[in-house]
Every structure is written in structure tokens, then in C-alpha cells.
């Protein structure tokens, strides 16, 4: 392990997820440009230092009629012309796959400084069409075609599976929603920071909080979001040079200490069938987490100070709680009731507000999670800071629990 070169995170920039870039009449390039220029401003990285770029994006071909996003990176600054770039897609885990690729290249010592951009522009189409596009993250013909809002229904089934195996109360899902919305109010980049929301609303069973798929109601869903996030990953050599220039100590620069990455069968019912004798409903997610902890040399989740997880729906966060090991399998509700996951709890989950509160620009989410982890361990998260956070884990999921990625960021 010790022979694998270290990968440092120098920081980055997130666009304001409350913005509607279609109303601003902007091209997806504008969003990438703002994120990358913002990241250079925040980190004082010069464009000439960037050696490679990886773009995470799910479906710009559908939402924006535009592919080949790696090439658009070179439009951002004249110094980028000629850089090696590429675009990565793994549904909602696209951003994390771009990070993994950048990381691997630094570990392979091909490059010393990589820019990773996650980006998605989703408000170009209405809810129904957007829901159909998102269906391509499942097996479209078998699970999504002709179905209104397929994903809430798939994650409703995840809740049903928990209910069948262990029992599940909707009030615990509502609590997850309320915590995420509450945390988002402290995050100046969160999409829902000014929205009207409270626990009672999340629990309500009225038309204001209508059903969208099985047990999933509006308040259980993440948002349709326009957003981009850029971050810089660096080798030890580049990080040291950066430290010398910015007056930072190398031991204060966060590293990606561990990572995990697994992909399960794409159909939800196949995943559930495979796990029927397992303690975990989604064992590949569990392996992703344990791989990352193992690579970081952290024995278990008690060594993690906060988690930024994938709460595309409240059921996915419910699943993440026990898969991280915060409770025994099936007992996620205990961590909710005991206040473990709330800001100020033993292991806050989604201090940023997560996908429900902060927003979910699909291809940007994994990069946003990593940047939030960086903010936490550098003490720069502002009002949603987890006091004294040293190690923060992410979990980014594509599809119905299909592609899973975890990073552990710490100093």
C-alpha cells in the first residue's frame, strides 16, 4: 500500500445550485467555465499548471444536445488548448468515476496536477421528460420505458425491500428529508436554502407532498439541479510546490486516503435477488465502503467524522446509514432517532444538505461530495462545519444502487 503515490486535494469551487442556467440562457460551457475559473481563484492554481482534465457528466447529449464535454474543457482558458481531456459517464456516479480516473493517473505518475469537473444542466426540459432521461440510468427498456418517473419507483422498492426484511417506518424517511433540508439552510450554495420546508411538511401525507412512486413522496426526492463543481487533484510533488507558493504545510493538505468502487447488476430486482441471503440489502455498496476504509487504514466507521452520502431519495440515505456501519443492518432508524446523523451528532450525514437539500446535478454530485469533504477537513465549511472533522467519507451511487464509489478525504 505504502508504495502507491499519494493524491492530494487542493480545493475547488461549486456553482450556486439554486441557479437556473436555462433561464440565464447559458450554454453548459458557461457552467464549466465558472466552476473551473472559480476553482483557480480559490486555490491559486494557474492554468499553465494543469496537466490533464477529466469531466464527469451523465447525459448532456439528452439535456443539452451536446456530447464530447472533455473538449469543452479546452475552451475555458487558452492555456488548456492541447491538454489531454476526457469525459466519464456512470449515471449519478459520473463525477466519482472522473475522480477515480484522475486519481489513477496521478498514482501512475503520468501527471502531477489534474482538474476534475463534474457538470450537469438539467433544467433544459420539463420534469416528465427529465424523469425519462434519468430512466436511462436504469435498464431503460426493462425498467423505465413508458413509466412516469421511474427512479422514485425504483428507490421506493428499495424502501419496500427494507420493510420486508427489517421493517421500515415512513417517519424515519421523513426525518432524513427534514435533516437534509435543515442542513441546506446553512449552505450558501444549496439549491433549497430558501425553500419552505420543515419536518412536519416532510411527514405530511397531503397533496403538497404528493406520492411520486410507491412510498416515495416529493419531500423524499433529491432535486433537479443545474450545477458544476471543479476540483484539483495533485501528486505529492505538485502539492509540495503548491504549498511552498501558498504558504501551506503539506500535512494540512487533505489527501484521498482511501477509495472504493464496485458495480452491481443493473436491474434492481437482480441486485435484490443476489442479496437475498446477505445481511446487507446492497452488498456491493457495503464492499465499496469497506474497501475505502481498508485502503485508508481506518478500522471502521467510528474513524469517520462525517459522511457526504448519496441521498437521491431518502431510502438511499437510509440504506447508506447501515451500509456504512453506523448501525447493524436494518437498524438505520436507530441512528436517526439517536441523533447520530444530525449536524452536531456523532457522525453527521450530509452536513451540506446532500442531494435532497443542496441539490443533485447528476454528473457533478460526486465531485461536489469530494469538495464538501475537503471543506470539512480544512475547516472551511462555514455554517455547516462539523467541528474538528479529520476524516470525511463520501458515497456516490449511479443507478438503482448499481455503480458505487466512496472516497475518504482526510489530513
Amino acid at each position, binding site marked *: 500500500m505504502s508504495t502507491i503515490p499519494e493524491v492530494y486535494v487542493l480545493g475547488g469551487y461549486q456553482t450556486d445550485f439554486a441557479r437556473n442556467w436555462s433561464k440565464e440562457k447559458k450554454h453548459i460551457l458557461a457552467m464549466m467555465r465558472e466552476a473551473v475559473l472559480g476553482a483557480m481563484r480559490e486555490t491559486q492554481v494557474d492554468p499553465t499548471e494543469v496537466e490533464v482534465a477529466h469531466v464527469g457528466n451523465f447525459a448532456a447529449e439528452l439535456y443539452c444536445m451536446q456530447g464530447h464535454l472533455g473538449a469543452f474543457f479546452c475552451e475555458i482558458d487558452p492555456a488548456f488548448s492541447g491538454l489531454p481531456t476526457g469525459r466519464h459517464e456512470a449515471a449519478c456516479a459520473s463525477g466519482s468515476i472522473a475522480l477515480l480516473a484522475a486519481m489513477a493517473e496521478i498514482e501512475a505518475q503520468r501527471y502531477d496536477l489534474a482538474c476534475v469537473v463534474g457538470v450537469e444542466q438539467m433544467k433544459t426540459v420539463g420534469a416528465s421528460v427529465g424523469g425519462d432521461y434519468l430512466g436511462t440510468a436504469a435498464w431503460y427498456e426493462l425498467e423505465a420505458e413508458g413509466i412516469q418517473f421511474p427512479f422514485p419507483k425504483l428507490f421506493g422498492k428499495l424502501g419496500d425491500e427494507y420493510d420486508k426484511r427489517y421493517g421500515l417506518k415512513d417517519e424515519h424517511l421523513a426525518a432524513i428529508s427534514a435533516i437534509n433540508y435543515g442542513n441546506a439552510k446553512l449552505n450558501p450554495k444549496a439549491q433549497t436554502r430558501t425553500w*419552505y420546508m*420543515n419536518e412536519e411538511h416532510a411527514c405530511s401525507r397531503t397533496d403538497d407532498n404528493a406520492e411520486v412512486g410507491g412510498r416515495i413522496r416529493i419531500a423524499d426526492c433529491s432535486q433537479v439541479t443545474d450545477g458544476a463543481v471543479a476540483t484539483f487533484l495533485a501528486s505529492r510533488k505538485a502539492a509540495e510546490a503548491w504549498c511552498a507558493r501558498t504558504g501551506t504545510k503539506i500535512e494540512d493538505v487533505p489527501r484521498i486516503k482511501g477509495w472504493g468502487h464496485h458495480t452491481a447488476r443493473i436491474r434492481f430486482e437482480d441486485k435484490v435477488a443476489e442479496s437475498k441471503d446477505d445481511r446487507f440489502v446492497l452488498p456491493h455498496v457495503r464492499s465499496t465502503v469497506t474497501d475505502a476504509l481498508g485502503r485508508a487504514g481506518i478500522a471502521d466507521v467510528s474513524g469517520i467524522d462525517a459522511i457526504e452520502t448519496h441521498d437521491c431519495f431518502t431510502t438511499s440515505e437510509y440504506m447508506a446509514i447501515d451500509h456504512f456501519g453506523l448501525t447493524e443492518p436494518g437498524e438505520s432508524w436507530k441512528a436517526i432517532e439517536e441523533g447520530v446523523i444530525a449536524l452536531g451528532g456523532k457522525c453527521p450525514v450530509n452536513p451540506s444538505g446532500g442531494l435532497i437539500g443542496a441539490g443533485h446535478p447528476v454528473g457533478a454530485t460526486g465531485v461536489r461530495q469530494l469538495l464538501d469533504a475537503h471543506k470539512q477537513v480544512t475547516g472551511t465549511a462555514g455554517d455547516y462545519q462539523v467541528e474538528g472533522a479529520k476524516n470525511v467519507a463520501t458515497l456516490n451511487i449511479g443507478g438503482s444502487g448499481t455503480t458505487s464509489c466512496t472516497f475518504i478525504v482526510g489530513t
Partner: protein
Amino acid sequence: MQVTSTPKLSLDAHPGARPIRHVVVLGANGTMGFGSAALFTTAVEKVTFLARTTEKAEGGLAAAIRMVRSGTVATKAECGSYDDDFEKVVGDADLIFEAVTEKLDLKHQFFERIDACRKPDSIVATVTSGLSIDALAAPRSESFRKHFMGLHFFNPPNVIVGTELIASKDTDPELASFVESYCENFLGRVMIRTADTPGFAGNRVGFKVLNECCQLAEEHGPLLVDEVVGPYTGRALPPLRTVDLVGWDIHRAIVDNIHANAPDEAHDTLKLPAYMTELMEKGTLGNKSGKGFFMKDGKRRLALDPKSGSYTPIDEIARPELGFIERITRLQRVGLYDDAMQVFLAAEGDAATIAKKVIAGYIAYAFHRVGEVTETITGIDLIMGFGFNWAPPSVLVDTFGGDATVKLIEGADLSVPQQLTAALDAAKGEPLFDRQRTDIGRFWVAA
């Protein structure tokens, strides 16, 4: 089950701090009343909607629920009438929020009644957008005056976060500071402290620009004015469409107040055009009357000819060549905002001259107000950015460059505010806009 600990920043140690558990909203059947009442339910245990009749108050509650799309507003709300409930609920309230019709006499009547029954430490706030806070407070008791202030939410308050706080000369400074922090932390507001001057900060600067566009429309027509001072100059909605949305009568009330009570270097631009007065007499009030600068006839959009009062389909109106706007929006569309504004500065011709005159006037007027309505340009920047959704004056200066801005103002035959040159000197090449973590790009709309 208490499962969450939704985090809130404690203000207990703040000087002037006091618990705010019960808010009473007067005029809760009006838009500002029910909108503000809905906002308060996010932070306090009880909000009482008061109106002439309980039925009207209940109508306000129903509208609040529709506005924020959550029936949970009702669980914290009570409704009552001025006749039956006023003294009881106002006597219990920690914050009394007045949102009745903008008439001085009427407000005096309400404040007299509040003065007689309020708890000694309760806060009294008015949402007035035009009346003087000092004048409203003057006839009242010392305790009332110490606890009274203007709290100017913008409509709709659940969407627009920019909020002005106006202390009177007798307001307890610690209390004003506490209310400011309270609104920031518990109501998600962006707070701006302004002086008790006509129109305060936002309406003073914003309606100066809007009225100048109304004046220009007389010669150039509303269609051209809205295009050349369009979204690309840093606003979500073009100026004359904004006046139509606000309502011509409201526009008149605001500019008449400023014109009558705040003679300043741009006095002429605040004079309501005579054609608007004439047309208002015939019922032209903007969107709410079905016609204003623009109207719809089926699917066709028509524009007013201010000289004749008639409307012409917009596709039949001849316009000059506006290629510079297309070049600018093409750059803004891909995020090249600085380059776009360089094209603006270099643009020539009558249309560009109109746009430059308005934008230079906006920047100059805003900086001239520093020291009069706000302490620094930041207050004006924030209310224009988060109250009007316009590019703040400092953002424009930063985008143009300091020297280019001075040239632009001189080119429009306006006096360069000493406050601008002082701010540029102090900034030493750094940006003037002091909220650099705000996405500046959001202010540019590529249209």
C-alpha cells in the same frame, strides 16, 4: 419522536436579544402581509394573521399556504380580526409586523392602538416601502419608538431574500442589530441597513432606472428600450416589463415620493412622464389591468405607442440594427462575461448610446447615494442583487474596469461620484463587490 436537531445558530448572547415566539401580522390579507406571515412560520411557534375580519385573515392564511405550497403553515397560524382580537393578540406578541395599506393616517391609527396594548419589550416593525420611519414613530411613546423599525421585505418574500432594515432616530441600536441577525439566521434573509430616506436604498436606485426607461420610451418606444436595457445589462427582467409587473400606480407612488422628497443630482430622471399619468387615468396600470407598456392579444404581443396611447404588434415595429446585443449575448451564453461587456463599451450608434446612458446613470446614481442611504456601496449592491435581481453596481464596475466606468459616466454627461473614485482608490485594483463567493455570473442573462 424528536428525531432531528435542525441546526440554528444561537443568538442568545447577542446584545438586544429576546425570544421571538409569537408574531402578529397586521394586514395579513394583503400580499406582503400573508407572504411575510408565511415566512415567520418557519422560525416561530405562533403567527397570528389579523385583518378587518377573521374571514379576510383566513383568506390570507389560505393564500400563504398556496404561496409556499405547504399546509403546515396552518399548524402555527391563528386568524383574527381587528375588532375582536387586536388587543389580546398584540398584547401577547413578541413581534408586531404591520403590513396594512400604505396610508400614513391609517398606519398612525394602528400604531396608536399597538402603543396602548403592546408588551414593553415587544418589537414593532413596518413593511412600508415609502413612508418615513421617523414620521411613523414620532407621535408614539418612548418605549414604542425604541422598539420600532422598518423591515422592508420584497415581494414575494419567500423567493426574494434581500431585505432592508431601517432604524428610526430613536430605535435601540442593539435591538436593530439583533433583528438584523435574527432575519439573517432564522429567516434566510440578506440584510441591508439603510437610512430613513425616500424609497430607502433599493427602490431609490431601482426606480430611478425604471423611470428613466419610462421617459426614454416616449421617444424610442418601449420595445426598443426594453431590448437595449435588456437582461444582458444584468437583470432578470427588462425594465418596462418590470414596471408592468409592479403596476404603474405603484411605480408612480414610489417615484413621486422620491421626486418630491429627495431632490438630488438626477432629479429630472425621477419625474413621472406625463403620458403615464394620462394613460393611468384611462385605466392603464400594467399587467393587472391587462395593458401597460405591453399587452397580449391572443398569442400576439403588442407594444404601447406612448405618444398616441395605441398598441402595435411588436413584429410590425421597425427597430435599428442591434448587432452589438447579439455579439454580447453570444459571449455571455458561454460564460465570457468580461469580454461581453467590453463589446458593450465599444458599441456605437443610437441604441448603444441609450443603453450606456441608462447603465452609466445607474452606476453613478448608486455611488452618489453612498453616505446618504447606505454607509458603503455594499448595501446598495446587495439590495440590487438580492432584492431586484440586477447586477449590483459594483459588479458592473468590476466587469467594465474602473477607468472604463469613469469614462462611461463622463461619456453620458454625468458627474463622476467622488464615492466611486474613492472606492476605486481604496480597492487598489481588487474587485469592489465584496461578496466574491457569490456567483457573479448569475447576474448576467444572455438575452
